[in-house]
């Protein structure tokens, strides 16, 4: 061994016969020595500063030692940190078995000097050539390697039969090599693997040629010993630089200022999405200030069981053709129960949905559902996305029911909530029950307007509200009542947004953002090479087939509007200011433009005042509703 180490301390050596017959080269080849023979090219990570995850249970099997005494591997591993190496004694590949033995020898030599490790660490070298490697041969192989007290056993097996199950358990590939006459050459092809096993018999690391080095191996061994000694693992994670975001109930990164070169990320770890269950029923029994009584259908009274079941269904990605889509993938809780990250939705397999996902905050009060108002109860609406080919793509009602029935985690839940199993009716009722609780009011505006608390909103916002009710005419559709306000009229209107999208002729170039603060102008012709044909959208006309309904869409509520960008039924407007500017210009002229939409002649200051007002409409229980959503299990396939 010493000879090998000395000899190979050069960077490489010429191998006398390798590749002699290789048609790919006639040059004699050099062998670069494995890192395990030289100094480590980096500082080994400090003991205890990291974790070694459990890979699997170390396999057991019967082996014999150099005295011919039989042991089970599990006995030899009992209560020891073990390094297990597979070799065969005649292996001549310097970066194969000799490397493993050399590294183990270095480990032993160094650990011998640390008496506290003796009795806690054991090295095992097991031959995978029992035919040749008898106990005597292994004894000979071990000669000169046994100095010092650290235990190093040299093992073999009685037979191939005894060996093969062990090799299989450790996925130790080994192929006999044959010469030109088909005779076993005495050598094996094999992959070099050394295993680190903890005192519970669990594999904690595997090393191969490029990774096997005494420095890292010793620190790994000591890290395991430290773990076993119940000493506190040093926490290396230095989070002093981590920003403290509070609260964490917002989008993963709002991308604020992404248009500017100065943009900085404000990303939140997914593990900071910490859930806390809320009493959702209270938002129905005592609707927040500014909201009226919650309409509840007589045939679907709310119960905690239905709400909880509905919430589970809402977040269950298995309720789609390919197990990738729940309701919440488009109605993302921390993104205003819509999606802030795209204009119009995408469904299963990335299929294009032609409209923006609407928020479901305060959806209990909506008499018209979907942007075109085609549905009239939440219980029925639920089935639209579930069955839409471009959304969740379930092939049938029965498919959804069967899927729920086939998942154990639903056992008994429908029966508890409805006294009957999942059906088209009960599934709709459960999800509708959850959605009906997402009521959010008691905003700064509500406290000012309905509670006469003068301090809750700014003068600017108050002026904005006056414009909203007066000069700007917003409240004609986004209505405000004496005791409550939904900021909608349960009606449909043509603002020209839909008309523009359907009739706009693309020409010239599209501005495309390619990095923070970096934009390029791209020819539409280039974009269209990779663009599917854009789906057309005629709005309410799709439902009524009446020409006057072309491009009419439902008035959305403005509650929580600051949370639900991008805006309009097609997500075509990024900010509230741009929305106000759009209306200030009188929308887009077209034959069916709603007469209420007309130029407003608002000043720049007035536009800002309106925007300030819109920002006062965020409910005070958003954190509770989002935290509750975070607490919901996300259904994924097991």
């Amino acid at each position, binding site marked *: 061994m010493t000879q090998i180490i000395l000899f190979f301390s050069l960077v*490489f050596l010429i191998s006398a*016969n390798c590749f*002699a*017959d290789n048609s*790919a080269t006639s040059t004699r*080849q*050099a062998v670069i020595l*494995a*890192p395990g023979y030289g100094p480590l*090219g980096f500082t*080994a*990570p400090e003991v205890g*500063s*990291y974790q070694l995850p459990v*890979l*699997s249970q170390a396999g057991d099997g019967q082996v014999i030692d150099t005295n011919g005494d039989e042991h089970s591997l599990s006995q030899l591993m009992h209560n020891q940190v073990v390094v297990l190496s597979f070799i065969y004694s005649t292996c001549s*590949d310097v*970066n194969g078995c000799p490397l493993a033995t050399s590294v183990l020898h270095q480990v032993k030599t160094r650990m011998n000097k640390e008496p506290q490790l003796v009795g806690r660490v054991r090295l095992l070298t097991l031959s995978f050539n029992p035919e040749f490697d008898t106990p005597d041969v292994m004894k000979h192989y071990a000669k000169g390697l046994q100095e010092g007290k650290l235990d190093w056993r040299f093992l073999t097996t009685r037979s191939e039969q005894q060996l093969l199950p062990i090799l299989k358990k450790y*996925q130790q*590939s080994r*192929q*006999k090599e044959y010469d030109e006459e*088909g005779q076993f050459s005495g050598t*094996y*092809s094999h*992959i070099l*693997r050394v295993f680190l096993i903890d005192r519970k018999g669990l594999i904690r690391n595997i090393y*191969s*040629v*490029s990774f096997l080095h005494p420095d890292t191996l010793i620190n790994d061994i000591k890290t395991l010993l430290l773990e076993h000694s119940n000493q506190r693992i040093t926490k*290396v994670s230095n*989070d002093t*630089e981590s*920003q403290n975001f509070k609260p964490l109930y917002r989008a993963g990164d709002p991308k604020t200022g992404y248009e500017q070169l100065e943009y900085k*990320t404000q*990303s*939140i770890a*997914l593990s900071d999405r910490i859930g806390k269950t809320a009493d959702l029923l209270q938002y129905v029994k005592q609707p927040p200030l500014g909201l009226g009584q919650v309409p509840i259908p007589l045939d679907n009274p709310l119960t905690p069981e239905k709400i909880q079941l509905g919430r589970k269904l809402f977040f269950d990605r298995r309720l789609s053709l390919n197990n*990738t889509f729940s309701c919440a993938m488009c109605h*993302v809780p921390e993104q205003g129960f819509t999606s802030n*990250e*795209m*204009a*119009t939705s995408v469904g299963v397999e*990335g299929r*294009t949905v032609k409209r923006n996902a609407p928020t479901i905050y305060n959806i209990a009060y909506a008499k018209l559902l979907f942007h075109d108002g085609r549905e009239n109860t939440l219980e029925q609406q639920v089935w639209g996305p579930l069955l839409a080919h471009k959304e969740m793509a379930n092939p049938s009602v029965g498919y959804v029911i069967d899927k729920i029935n086939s998942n154990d985690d639903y056992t008994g839940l429908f029966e508890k909530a409805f006294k009957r199993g999942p059906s088209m009716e009960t599934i709709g009722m459960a999800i509708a029950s959850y959605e009906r609780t997402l009521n959010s009011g008691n905003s700064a505006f509500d406290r000012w307007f309905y509670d006469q608390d003068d301090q809750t909103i700014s003068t600017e916002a108050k002026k904005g509200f006056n414009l909203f009710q007066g000069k700007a005419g917003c409240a004609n559709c986004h209505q405000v009542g004496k005791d409550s306000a939904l900021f909608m009229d349960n009606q449909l209107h043509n603002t020209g947004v839909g008309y523009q999208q359907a009739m706009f002729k693309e020409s010239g170039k599209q501005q495309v953002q*390619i*990095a923070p603060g*970096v934009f*390029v102008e*791209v020819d539409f012709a*280039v*974009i269209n090479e*990779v*663009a*599917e044909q854009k789906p057309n959208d005629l709005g309410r006309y799709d439902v009524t087939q009446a020409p006057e309904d072309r491009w009419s869409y439902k008035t959305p509520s403005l509650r929580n509007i600051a949370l639900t960008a991008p805006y309009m039924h097609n997500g075509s407007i*990024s900010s509230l200011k741009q929305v106000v500017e759009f209306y200030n210009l009188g929308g887009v002229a077209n034959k069916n433009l709603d007469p209420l939409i007309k130029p407003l002649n608002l000043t720049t200051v007035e536009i800002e005042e309106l925007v300030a007002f819109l920002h006062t409409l965020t409910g005070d229980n958003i954190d509770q509703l989002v935290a509750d959503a975070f607490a919901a299990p*996300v259904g*994924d*396939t097991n």
Partner: protein
Amino acid sequence: MNKCIKNISKVTSGGLKAGVAALLTIALTGAMAIPAQADETCMSPYMAKIVGQEDYVYVWTLGMEGLGDEQDKLVTVDVNPASPSYGKIISTLSVGGRNEAHHSGFTDDRKYLWAGGLDTNKIFIFDVHTNPAKPTLHKTITSFVAQSGGVAGPHTTYALPGRMMITGLSNNKDHGGRTALVEYTNEGEYIATHWTPTDSQLNGAVKTGKYADGYGYDIRVLPRRNVMLTSSFTGWSNYMMDFGKMLKDAEAMKHFGNTVVLWNLHTRQPKKIFDVPGAPLEIRCAWDPNHNYCFTTTALTSKIWLIYENDKGEWLAKEVADIGDPSKIPLPVDISIQSDDNMLWVNTFMDGLTRGFDISDPFNPKQVYTKKIGTQVNMVSSSWDGKRLYYTSSLLANWDKKGDDNEQYFKSYHWDGKQLTEKFSIDFIKEKLGRAHQMRFGAKALYSSNQSTPAALSQLAIGQ
């Protein structure tokens, strides 16, 4: 066949023959003079390498609605000119569903090929050793998302000793780009999840610039430097979205990765986050043991970036070249580094070009060769000796070109050092197969110790 050619104990770390030969040349002549490319080296280095004539190319292929059986499949092409079925498809194995088949990688013993589905999050493990001419489906992991704690979009499947490191692209909460690395044993058992650092949890990493987005894409490692690098693309919402729709969606375009993260390979702890704006994708590291650097290219901003260690032992990131005219979004996709570290192949999807960059000065890459491969081109794989390059067409199901421009092919070229010459081509639409994506090589010699074959397996490349 010489025992050294096939002794797997000598080939577990890859890189070798060319690297070894190069070193030898330096020793003898003091010059680097070995013109070898290494797309075998685009894979994990800890496995046997095919350094001679490969027998098979496995093409992980996306099913296409309305074409053939419409589902994803592993297509095996015979690429050995000495074979009677040279240039022909000799096996196809459909796996069910369209999973957004994307990348694949062998385990370190090269017995199994792990192929991920970016949409359904399934990982298909193919047995490629029992009969390398006809892979079979050994196991399907369907619990990737649940086991990993919500990671979605399994992308690169990268071999480490006895285990696979899988990069995620997305998550099951918002289908955005925050994601993690996920480790599995070779047997397909979940080990651990390592989240990419975000501002709220840097986990010890230092932000060298303004960004910590938590996104992921590719992974490469340099064990001799204890370095692991990951790049960043985008979440499910974007990579599954129609490409044209996305380019017109201002919000969607804000959700691309702008970072490369340097990790401590041994401990899996993130150390540094580099600003590399515009979606850095593939990472390829140099082979020379003294070359402590890796390249990546940014898909949107069309740049070559160098991630390198300076003489003070600090790792840095530097933009070193434009790829085509960035204002036209040529969209650099797959890249490949020659094993002599002198040439980087870069494919640009939109114009269908493969571009050779002279990177002998890694700080000043220069484009020296271009060839149009098709209306669109994505992947490139080179044989170890650099004489054969294989190309495929598909980028992502919903990003591929539409109509007549949606050519789907596997093409074999010969490279003589100056020119690429087409040898054969297979039309994947005409053959009713689908969208051809990633390629991996197979050889009979890998799995048989007494078989005469032109394939030669490499020795050890400790350099990596």
